[in-house]
């Protein structure tokens, strides 16, 4: 199955990117593991004919050098889902875009480089109401928004939304990648 762009994650970043890319004439697939709480852009995307795969999650990628060729999902394991570009919008810990072990934070699907503090005692703030350091952990992308894997920038895997390190404007981070991909 071939698409122009596959978006991993059906949260605000994923559906925002999907809707705009679809409107720009790109054939998109959004793969969404959980509930999409952002019903309006999601419904609009689907109503406009965008492809949406609910209740499924990407389990592996197929690479050619630093270019991602295809992904496979848990439910459609036999199917290669190919695309020219991929957007990683799988969120932080709650949505399992990031996984914390006892001493590291990883991006579980592609092994993207993640920024985090190496000392676990510094992952949190004792004050519940303060911004938590772990809420700032995430993928640190290239200037234009592509992920690093083992220090090397991927050619066509982009990151948007909460998976990004630092303070993120979710919609803006998605629209930034849209503007590059529709050029």
């Amino acid at each position, binding site marked *: 199955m071939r698409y122009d762009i596959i978006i991993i994650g059906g949260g605000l970043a994923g559906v925002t990117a999907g809707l705009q890319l679809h409107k720009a004439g790109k054939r998109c697939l959004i793969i969404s593991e959980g509930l999409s709480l952002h019903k309006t852009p999601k419904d609009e995307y689907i109503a406009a004919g965008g492809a949406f795969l609910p209740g499924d999650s990407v389990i592996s990628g197929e690479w050619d050098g630093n270019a991602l060729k295809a992904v496979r999902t848990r439910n459609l394991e036999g199917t290669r889902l190919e695309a020219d570009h991929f957007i990683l919008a799988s969120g932080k*810990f709650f949505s399992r875009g990031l996984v914390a072990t*006892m001493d590291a934070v990883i991006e579980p699907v592609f092994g993207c480089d993640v920024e985090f503090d190496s*000392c676990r005692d510094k992952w949190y703030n*004792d004050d*519940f109401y303060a911004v938590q350091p772990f809420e700032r952990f995430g993928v640190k992308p290239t200037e234009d928004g592509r992920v690093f894997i083992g220090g090397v920038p991927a050619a066509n895997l982009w990151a948007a939304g909460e998976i990004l390190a630092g303070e993120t404007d979710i919609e803006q981070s998605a629209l930034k990648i849209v503007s590059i991909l529709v050029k």
Partner: protein
Amino acid sequence: MASQEYDVIIIGGGITGAGTARDCALRGLRTLLIERHDLAAGATGRNHGLLHSGARYAVTDSESAAECIRENTILRKIASNCVEETDGLFISLPEDDIEYRKTFIESCQRAGIKAEAIDPKDAIRMEPAVNPDIIGAVKVPDASVDPFRLTTANVLDATVHGAEVMTYSEVTGFIEENGRIVGVTVRNHRSGELSEMRSAVTVNAAGIWGHAIAELAGISIGMYPAKGSLLIFGHRVNRMVINRCRKPANADILVPGDVVCVIGTTSTKVPFEDCDDIRVTADEVNLLLEEGCKLAPSISHTRVLRAYAGVRPLVASDEDPTGRSISRGIVLLDHETRDGLPGLITITGGKLTSYRLMAEQATDLVCSKLGNVKKCETALRPLPGSEEEVGISRQSDSLGRKAAGNRHGARVFQMDFADKSEVVCECEHVTRAEIEYAIKFLDVHNLIDLRRRTRIGMGTCQGSFCMLRVATVLAQALGCPEKASEFVRQYVEERWKGLTPVCWGEGIREMEFMRKQYGK
């Protein structure tokens, strides 16, 4: 300033103070129990919940061991509703000295503890969660005890027999007349009111905080604050208590309780000023997990629900960097003979398992000072909830009623389930009926108190899903609906403290969710 007169004032609403209040009340004394925070808020609620057989101390501290097995036997009878008779295993691993087992069994037998060597294969059959590499095992009568339930039951019985209880009330000083302690000044933290409470005898049963209480009277009792950290897992992997058959060390006891299990402890000396806000470090968590996996390997992939720590009220005898070699025996100080200050005694040291004996010894001393000759009855009289069997719950009983029967024993008959059987906390099946019962009988002022009385929010969601609903129901039932959001704030902050040391895996997911739900 308001002033009232009692025979005895007991400072500290932990298990020791609660037990002492019950004993004093049963002997007919006009009794007042004063607690700075809530019942069981200190070391009482921050331990394994292990009803020791005494085996752990048999080799190193035979006096404590003998005390433990006597009290263990008594509590199974008088507090059947708080105790689960799990039995315990002391396991030897390949790196342990198997010869120690012989000394261990002999020491247990000398202390009157039934200790039975078990073939490793039989031990694994008995307790499938145990490390399959064991080279030896000894079965002992350890059990699991719910310290919140036990404290509540003691306080409830004390009040039934006329005792008065003041929670959220802090002793700010002693009243001294003619060289004698004749009472205390108390600040009520809820009303801000200061009052005088007078008594013939005052009992300092404040655990590690007893050090500061004694200082208020100008006395030093040389306590040794030994912090012990523990981890609680999201579900129960073991049926029996699992211990390591070696000299007591770090993280060598895994205790099941209700639907969870607890690994602990560490032991480090901490400054007195830290005792009010004790936190578990990442290093301690790592050590607990590493050692805990040697007892039951499956805990390595069981979710850690939270971490907590308590401070043992040990009395220092010599310099010992960990406090492991200080006796866990009971320390009863008569400040009249020890320091020339009549009217004040201190009961400390000891253990959760030996609380009743501590209370008996303290009450005996109080009675001897008051000329009261009534004998102690606490070893014979069942605690509220344990007087009669609840009976096998009927198939038609609601889950909430079954859960309440498990928690409160025969007291479930005092709950009114008509129209109030709706479940408010799904993890622990706490109903509106149980909440209303707790408010009526068990001195509940906020959500954290309610958690200690009913296990509300103690399950796998840690209150994330039910907190708002529970806070609303509680605030309405207390007649102060405006307090609901304050209850939530207190509760979230308390839960956060337990979550931060285990901020990985499912724990960090929980934290992110909690922040999104309640953090803004």
